[in-house]
Every structure is written in structure tokens, then in C-alpha cells.
């Protein structure tokens, strides 16, 4: 490939190749403070290629390729090349990760214990995690929770936070401009702006934490808290896992252990401040 970049994110090393300089320049700026893979060996390769050879010059359109591909992944316009790189990295993780049980969830840590937040897209887990990461918590990841199947520990995967639509302004009001990527408008997911996690999150990306609580947040309704039964959590988490089925009995054992050892709550919240208040309250109760 003409342009290349390697990035270490937590325990996972990526190599991204691109037919164009532009998406990789944006990616390099966004991931400026991340280490390079120590031994130069990468777990996953992402390639951004021209959809058709001539389209590299004429109405360029980016196709996402890699070791694992979805046949129907639609090409993106070159203006959204950074999004294509991010989606490519997520795709490789979702389809190829075999070392960890992967949950589509955000994780934050405080006092050595981790909080897992999972829910449907739009439930606000990414925004909540990003906000908590600026308010005394360590952001471990906004997209994937990596559960180590031997130790039961969660490992950080602090890639750039993908902020969508309304969440962009919320974070712009709190975080220095230098930590943001370009605003990508009119993508298939609406407006998107990536945000680099803070120094604390990056310098501790090798440091895992044992889980303490599983939360199912839902944005938009009046504040409410209810406990979630273990069988329901199990079902929700198998749905939230991209690789549960392929891990067989090891996945079953680690997921049932996670559920047996941790309480779970569903919360409805009308605004992010009330959600952060609830989370801080839960943490105080758990520590007491």
C-alpha cells in the first residue's frame, strides 16, 4: 500500500494501509500520542482501497478491506476516509478477535474497578463514558470491552471516541480542541467527530481492571433504576458480544462468571448530568 500507519491500542496492534494520504494523515493526528507496536507485529490489518482503480482520482470512494471483510460494506466517500479507517479497525476486531470475549460496551475505571455500560446504539453509553473519562474516571474504551477469559479482567481498548450528532457539542464544551479530529458531516451515521481519550487513559492503556458493575443505560426517559435478572443480563450480553459464538465453552464460562460475580442495573436518564450522578452514587455504595 502506498501509505501506512501502525498503532497500538491497549493489547491490540493495528496496521492501516491506504491508497490515499488524506485518511492516514487525519488518523495519525488523532492517534498522535499512541505508541507504535513494540515488536512491530500487528494483530489486524486494515486496507483502504479505491473501489475501482480509476476512482482513486475521479470521485474517489473508499472501500474497507482487511483480513476479515463484510461482503456488503458500502464504500464511503474520501471525505469520510477517517471514518472508513475507524470502521475498518472496528470490523477487524469484531470479526477477528479470538483472544478476548468482546462485548459491544463502554468501560470506565475508578479505584481499580471497572464499570461496564452496554446498550443499543444511541443509548448514550459512548457519550457517558467520554464524560466520565473527563470527570475523575479512567476511560478504558467507548466501543469494545475486552474480557480476558482466563483472569476475568477487563482490558482497556481506548481508541478514539466516536461522537455522534448531539454528543459532539457536549464534549466540545469540555475538552481542548487539539484532541478532536475533523468534523465529518453527512456520513451514513450522521455527523461524527472523533475525540482522543485523555493522557490518563492513554498512559494506562496496558492496565486492566476487574469488573464491579454492569449497567444498561438508556437515554431519553425520566430517571429510573431497576435491577436486571441474571438470565436477562446473560441474554443481553450474548447479543452484545460479537464473538461469543465462536469462542465456544470458554466464552460461555467467562460470560457466566462475569454475570455471577457482578450486579447489573438498568438506568433511564433524561440528561447526562443525572446519569453521572447515578453512576457516582452506585460507586460510592459499592465501595461502602
Amino acid at each position: 500500500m502506498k501509505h501506512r500507519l501502525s498503532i497500538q491500542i491497549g493489547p491490540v496492534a493495528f496496521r492501516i494501509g491506504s491508497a490515499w494520504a488524506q485518511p492516514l494523515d487525519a488518523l495519525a493526528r488523532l492517534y498522535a500520542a499512541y505508541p507504535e507496536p513494540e515488536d512491530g507485529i500487528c494483530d489486524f490489518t486494515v486496507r483502504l482501497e479505491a473501489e475501482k482503480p480509476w476512482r482513486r482520482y475521479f470521485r474517489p470512494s473508499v472501500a474497507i478491506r482487511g483480513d476479515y471483510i463484510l461482503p456488503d460494506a458500502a464504500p464511503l466517500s474520501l471525505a469520510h476516509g477517517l471514518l472508513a479507517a475507524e470502521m475498518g479497525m472496528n470490523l477487524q476486531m469484531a470479526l477477528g478477535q479470538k483472544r478476548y470475549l468482546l462485548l459491544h460496551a463502554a468501560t470506565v475505571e475508578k479505584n481499580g474497578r471497572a464499570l461496564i455500560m452496554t446498550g443499543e446504539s444511541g443509548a448514550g453509553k459512548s457519550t457517558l463514558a467520554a464524560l466520565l473519562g473527563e470527570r475523575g474516571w479512567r476511560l478504558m474504551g467507548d466501543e469494545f470491552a475486552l474480557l480476558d477469559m482466563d483472569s476475568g479482567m477487563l482490558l482497556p481498548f481506548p481508541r478514539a471516541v466516536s461522537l455522534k450528532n448531539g454528543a459532539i457539542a457536549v464534549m466540545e464544551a469540555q475538552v481542548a480542541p487539539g484532541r478532536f479530529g475533523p468534523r465529518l458531516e453527512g456520513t451514513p451515521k450522521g455527523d461524527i467527530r472523533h475525540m482522543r481519550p485523555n493522557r490518563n487513559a492513554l498512559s494506562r492503556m496496558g492496565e486492566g481492571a476487574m469488573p464491579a458493575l454492569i449497567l444498561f443505560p438508556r437515554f431519553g426517559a425520566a430517571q429510573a433504576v431497576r435491577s436486571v435478572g441474571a438470565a436477562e443480563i446473560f441474554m443481553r450480553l450474548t447479543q452484545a458480544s460479537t464473538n461469543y459464538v465462536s469462542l465456544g465453552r470458554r466464552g460461555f464460562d467467562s460470560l457466566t462468571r462475569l454475570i455471577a460475580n457482578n450486579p447489573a442495573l438498568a438506568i433511564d436518564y433524561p440528561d447526562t448530568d443525572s446519569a453521572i450522578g447515578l453512576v457516582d452514587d452506585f460507586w460510592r455504595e459499592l465501595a461502602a
Partner: protein
Amino acid sequence: MAGPVFATDPEAQVSAVELDGLSVLFHAPSGMTHIVAAPAPQILDALRIGPADAGELLARLRAWYDFESDDEVADAVDARLEELEAAGLVRRA
């Protein structure tokens, strides 16, 4: 008249975890996970003694549990056997 005889996999092939009164089963031969409620786990346990038809299965369950009405339990066992067979957790011997 004896009905079909059913069999299931040995305990080593099926990991079971109790969650909230439900049982979560990992069925190693198929790699599939099932969430089941009583009396499905009890039926599987009773079939592990050896293959049995519905009548024999009911007799084994009766030895372990107190039933108020045999007819209702017999209907439930028939219905659960059909579901467990469809799920691949029991098969005809």
C-alpha cells in the same frame, strides 16, 4: 403403546449454570447456548440415567419429585420433549 424413546448427551457435554431460577446450557456438540426453565433441566437429568420413552421418563421424575396431577405433568413432559428435541438437546434413540 410405547412412544418414541429419547436420549440426551452426557453431563460432560453440557455445561449448565443457574441464573435467576433459569438454567443456561452450553451444548458442546453443537456449540449452541440455550436458556431453559424447569422442568427442562430435570428432564435432561432423568434422561441421563439412560434412554427412555415419555412414560418411563415420567416414572423417573415421579421418583424424584412430588406431583399434584399426573395428567398435567405428562402433558408438560410431552411438550418439553418436543421443544428439547427441536433445540437439539434430546434426540430419538
